[in-house]
């Protein structure tokens, strides 16, 4: 990526009110300096470093320094070379041929070949990776015609597969390390061996993980840094203080409280960015249980969508971070053409009047105290912000005559109630779109994802054969224009049906020291290697 196009992207986020002053981390006129130690805050401490077994958010910032994927992604969310220097997708979409980089070695000295790719995908990832049942379901074999060529054989065209091959989604493992060992019990789980720019150094439990520069890294001259320290600081104000004193250089995701971001932003030593989260795309939502009347009526669901002021939530509950959501697919997918805002819009000036009329038409007349019906909202247990949002929703829906009672339970009880017992009226979760609608979106709307006991799938009982057919077609369509058309259609139908109410696109913030350069170099952000990151010293 050239610095000028990065500059443009930086400008766009400025317009969106996302990035702060300056374009730090991008477009530096200075040339990189070698050496130095970067201290990043990882919150909370990971339970394991077995990135092939778990997709927990706190693992990847460490493991993506060590494990690499076949590809990475550029700012337009297109695959870019990594361990594969090029690839061809067969016209029928049933095979993908990867040409691998030459001269790559693992940290244990073993040479990287197509046999490692085959073993990693067929023997480890396909068997134990949590997303394999969706992402790798159509992968039937990996052929290795020569050491530098790997051919993926698919039972159906799978365009989403190319979107899930980064070091975060599908880490390439060393065959000799994993052979003849149960992948769930590999001794290198917590001292990983990969091909990446940094090698595992040590792990002081409760304090830090040390990663050392890989001197034999296959990209000559990289990485710039000598060392990365991933520090674990349990208390959020101590984390902010560590950034303010310069003790730590980098904190991504929600390591810094939103309420502290404005203050840290004012610190001349620090800068913030909202870039580097384009492949996660969280959307906050209200789920409506269609088995609980009157949520079986579309008018009622739409009325709720009209009643909520998304801007209010962003400004007053999310400290100004976020963007109103227009539908099931995040606007970050505008880069790949899958997103459209040409759907039924709820942010119209006379939205309250429309909502009241819809409820009147649905036969829900105002009764005693001006209320039409009463229901319960299950409060998301992931933190204060969600309780504030629930309090706001209660007020906003009272305006159109819906009487909400809030119920807050611990995470286990909440998830069991809404995804196993279906004993709820409304719930306020958030979902990540991830790298492709097949992986992050589909699960919530198709009929075969009504799976009792599985968290974060279809628990609204929404079932629309047309939508099911479209999602199946979208998963197998390899022509980007046709694929975009399918997903545009899905967005239109879903927004009109409103099986869930989409509230805001969650915006994460990275806070970093201005001495740190090029820390955010792609849409995977902190889930990609810091090989080009450098520090002034």
């Amino acid at each position, binding site marked *: 990526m050239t610095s000028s196009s990065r500059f443009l992207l930086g400008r766009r986020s400025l317009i969106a009110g996302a990035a702060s002053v300056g374009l730090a981390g991008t477009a530096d006129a200075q040339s990189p300096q070698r050496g130095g130690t970067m201290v990043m805050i990882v919150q909370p401490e990971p339970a394991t470093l077995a990135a092939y077994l778990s997709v927990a958010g706190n693992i990847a910032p460490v493991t993506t320094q060590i494990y690499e994927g076949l590809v990475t992604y550029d700012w337009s969310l297109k695959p870019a070379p990594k361990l594969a220097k090029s690839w061809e997708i067969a016209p029928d979409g049933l095979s993908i041929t990867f040409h691998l980089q030459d001269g790559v070695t693992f940290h244990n000295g073993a040479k990287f070949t197509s046999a490692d790719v085959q073993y990693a995908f067929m023997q480890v990832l396909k068997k134990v990776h949590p997303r394999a049942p969706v992402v790798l379901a159509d992968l039937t074999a990996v052929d290795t015609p020569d050491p530098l060529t790997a051919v993926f054989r698919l039972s159906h065209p799978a365009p989403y597969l190319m979107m899930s091959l980064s070091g975060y989604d599908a880490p390439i493992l060393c065959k000799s390390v994993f052979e003849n060992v149960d992948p769930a019990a590999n001794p290198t789980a917590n001292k990983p061996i990969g091909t990446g720019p940094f090698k595992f150094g040590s792990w002081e439990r409760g304090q830090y993980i040390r990663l050392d520069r890989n001197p034999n890294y296959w990209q000559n001259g990289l990485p710039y840094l000598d060392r990365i320290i991933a520090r674990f600081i349990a208390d959020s104000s101590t984390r902010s203080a560590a950034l303010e004193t310069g003790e730590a250089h980098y904190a991504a995701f929600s390591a810094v*409280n939103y*309420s502290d971001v404005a*203050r840290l932003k004012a610190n001349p030593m620090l800068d913030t960015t909202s870039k580097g989260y384009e492949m996660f795309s969280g959307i906050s939502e209200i789920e409506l249980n269609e088995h609980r009347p009157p949520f079986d009526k579309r008018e009622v669901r739409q009325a709720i969508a009209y009643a909520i002021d998304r801007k209010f939530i962003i*400004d*007053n*509950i999310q400290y100004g971070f976020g963007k109103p959501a227009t539908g099931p697919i995040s606007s970050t997918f505008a880069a790949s053409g899958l997103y459209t805002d040409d759907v039924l819009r709820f942010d119209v000036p006379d939205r309250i009047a429309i909502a009241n009329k819809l409820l009147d038409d649905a036969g829900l007349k105002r009764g005693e105290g001006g209320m039409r019906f009463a229901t319960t909202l299950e*409060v998301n247990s992931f933190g*204060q912000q969600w*309780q*504030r949002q*629930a*309090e*706001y929703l*209660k*007020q906003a829906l009272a305006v159109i005559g819906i009487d909400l*009672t*809030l*119920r*807050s*339970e*611990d995470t286990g*009880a909440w998830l069991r109630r809404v995804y196993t017992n279906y004993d709820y009226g409304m719930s306020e979760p958030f979902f990540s779109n991830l790298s492709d609608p097949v992986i992050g979106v589909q699960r919530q709307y198709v009929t075969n994802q009504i799976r009792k006991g599985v968290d974060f799938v279809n628990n609204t009982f929404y079932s629309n054969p047309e939508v099911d057919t479209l999602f199946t077609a979208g998963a197998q369509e390899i022509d980007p224009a046709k694929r975009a058309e399918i997903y545009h259609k899905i967005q239109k139908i879903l927004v009109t049906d409103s099986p869930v109410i989409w509230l805001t696109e969650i915006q994460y913030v990275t806070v970093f020291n201005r001495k740190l350069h090029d820390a955010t170099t792609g849409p995977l952000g902190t889930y990609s290697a810091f090989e080009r990151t450098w520090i002034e010293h």
Partner: protein
Amino acid sequence: MSLLSRFARNRLAVVGALALLLVLVMALAAPLLYPAGAFALVGPPTQPPGGTFPLGTDTLGRDVAAGIVWGARTSLIVSVAATLGAVVLGVLTGAFAGYYRGITDTAIMRVTEFFQTIPSFILAILLVAVLSPAVTSEILAIAVVSWPGIARLVRGEFASLGGREFVLATAGLGAGDARIVFRHILPNCASPLVAVGSLLVASAILFESGLSFLGLGDPNLMSWGLMISAGREVLRSAWWICTFPGIAILATVLSINLVGDGLNEAFNPGLRDR
């Protein structure tokens, strides 16, 4: 000298009683003062005190004054109900143990010791988390962690009063156990019970605030602890959101303690002159 005038001799207790009366009036008048409730979004967010909103507004644009008034209601309901629960449970078990002594006494006292060795706030958190946060589970949890103190007090009183002549005389006249316990002994331990019970209300308010602060309060009821917890994140930029509920808790708990001391002195006139 009447009880009231003995109470009035302690000036601080009178001040406490007046402050408490104010809180009580606020709690009763909440629906009249702020009919829209404490959660209503009435103005622009984070307005400093003064002007339309004498105590300012919080991060969602809710009136802090409305929160204080409605929070007083929640605090008083929870604390008084929990204290009553604790007193009833404590008196019954304590009376049983102190009156019958022997194995009953030993068994009940071991149970109270069991409760007293568990850190009470932790136990309350556990109970509310298990029962799911609601006003009834808060009341239950606070009552469950508060009764052992009352039980031990009552047992002590019963043990010392049980052997007195008037009790023996009543028994000799053929009175049943229930009559002796409730007509003759219990009224004689009313004064320490009232004094300790009033202090229990204060600690129940602290418990309630603490639980709400941790997000274990009833999400549908405004509470001072909830206000502090919600305002804590913006303490540096909007001090008034947690300061006023903090003052409310401090003032209420302090005034209850003053009233408790005053009652104690009024019931035991010798105490003051000693």
